[in-house]
């Protein structure tokens, strides 16, 4: 109850919740991305200020990948339409989805990041668990847990997300903030190009050797590329790619040829979503089959 709850309390004291009229609102901000659209409702509207929430809607085209990001508050998403894949990054959790037999430490890289032979050649990929979602699903994500979404269906995904910015888990201010781990996206909660209240205008920092950097918004942009090169043990050029300078795809990008990730088959032995649903309905649970 460090900031969020007290902030909400003070808002109420200031009369922010003395609303004498409620309105039905359409999204007020729209960001066109390479493979979709991000729409948001003005978080500064008194209704949202009173409730301490923000709302955003994603429309993700087939083969659209929502780049990894996390938020400063817990979020609850409802899938209005479509189906796809959700990947989450939970610190401390192992990479339990593996594509082949591999060494304990994955592929072997020598100095300068050169891949060695042997075990590395057998290695394909491993990552944290991913899951499928479909129309009607509710997805809950804690604060700070990074997520990515991919539309592997043949129709757009429409997802509405509530961000509970006055939740106790958020110790920042009540501005909804999305921290992008990749890409060069626009802030989905900035209204009509306006900066959020109290925020400084965008001021791109000088990169290494004092050179002016291009437009860049993800969290790696603020680090010196030399730090990144050391941290990832890669060459400077690869490290700079993390910063996605001048990438104009925004945060939903198109994956040509479809995204190949390690995942269980969509249907196995004739079992589809409907059958799974039946089993869940009658108490079988989703994980009862060994």
């Amino acid at each position, binding site marked *: 109850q*460090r900031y969020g709850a007290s902030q909400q309390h003070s808002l109420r004291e200031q009369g922010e919740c003395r609303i004498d009229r409620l309105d039905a609102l359409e999204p007020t901000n729209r960001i066109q991305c390479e493979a979709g659209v991000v729409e948001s409702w003005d978080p500064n509207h008194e209704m949202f200020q009173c409730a301490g929430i923000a709302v955003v809607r994603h429309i993700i085209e087939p083969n659209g*990948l929502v780049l*990894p990001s*996390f938020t400063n508050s817990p979020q609850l998403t409802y899938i209005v339409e479509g189906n796809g894949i959700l*990947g989450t*990054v939970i*610190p*401390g959790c192992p*990479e339990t*989805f593996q594509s082949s037999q591999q060494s304990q*430490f*994955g*592929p072997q*890289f*020598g*100095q300068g*990041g050169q*891949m060695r032979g042997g075990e590395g050649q057998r290695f394909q990929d491993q*990552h944290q668990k991913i899951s499928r979602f479909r129309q009607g699903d509710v997805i809950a994500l804690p*604060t*700070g847990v*990074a997520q*990515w979404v*991919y539309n592997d269906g043949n129709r757009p995904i429409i997802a509405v997300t509530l961000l509970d910015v006055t939740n106790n*888990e*958020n*110790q*920042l201010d009540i501005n909804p*903030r*999305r*921290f*992008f*781990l*990749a890409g060069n996206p626009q*802030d989905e909660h900035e209204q009509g190009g306006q900066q959020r209240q109290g925020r400084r205008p*965008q001021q791109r*920092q000088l990169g290494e050797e004092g050179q002016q950097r291009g437009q860049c*918004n*993800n*969290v*790696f942009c*603020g*680090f*010196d590329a030399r*730090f*990144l090169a*050391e*941290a*990832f043990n*890669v060459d400077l050029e*690869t490290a700079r*790619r993390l*910063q*996605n300078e001048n*990438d104009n795809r925004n945060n939903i*990008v198109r994956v040509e040829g479809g*995204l*190949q*990730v*390690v995942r269980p088959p969509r249907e196995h032995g004739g079992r589809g979503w409907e059958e799974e649903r039946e089993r869940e309905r009658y108490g079988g649970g989703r994980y009862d089959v060994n």
Partner: protein
Amino acid sequence: GLEETLCTMRLRENIGDPSRADVYTQQAGHISALNSHKLPILYWLQLSAEKGHLHRNAIMVPHYNLNCHSVVYAIRGSARIQVVSDDGQTVFDEELREGQLVVVPQNFAVVKRAENEEFEWVSFKTNDNAMVNPLAGRTSVMRALPDEVIANAYQVSREDAKRLKYSRRETTVFSSNESGGSFSERRAEA
């Protein structure tokens, strides 16, 4: 029952002893965390602490605090620290010297590098069970992502995506003089 609970509650725990470190590398340094699992009263206070020690030129990987703010106080030496906000803006890029402190807000990414001398710090965290998510290294966000997601996100080849995932094998701290190939991290022996 107060005398059996409150009055006997442990109020003290040492995190300055390197032999009790939670993360230890011979070349780079060590880190000890104190949370409510180790000192239960912290559950009431909703606070925790971390003590770190970086050798010269060692780096603590870029990371962010999931559920708390962090106040970093330099005990000894100095380090270059960079802090990045949600819009990718560098909000701090300075040397933090002995006796100075900096507040790192929740979810803001931070990297520390000891420069020409050893760096010791204590961080006060505003959650009793503070959680950190590293952006690089063996337990990082990058390792958790499929390499195709990395390749498409950063517009790199799958080979480069694999390098970004696997080239840094340490978890938390590493020496920048190393090639990065050795896996030297281990727990300190008492």
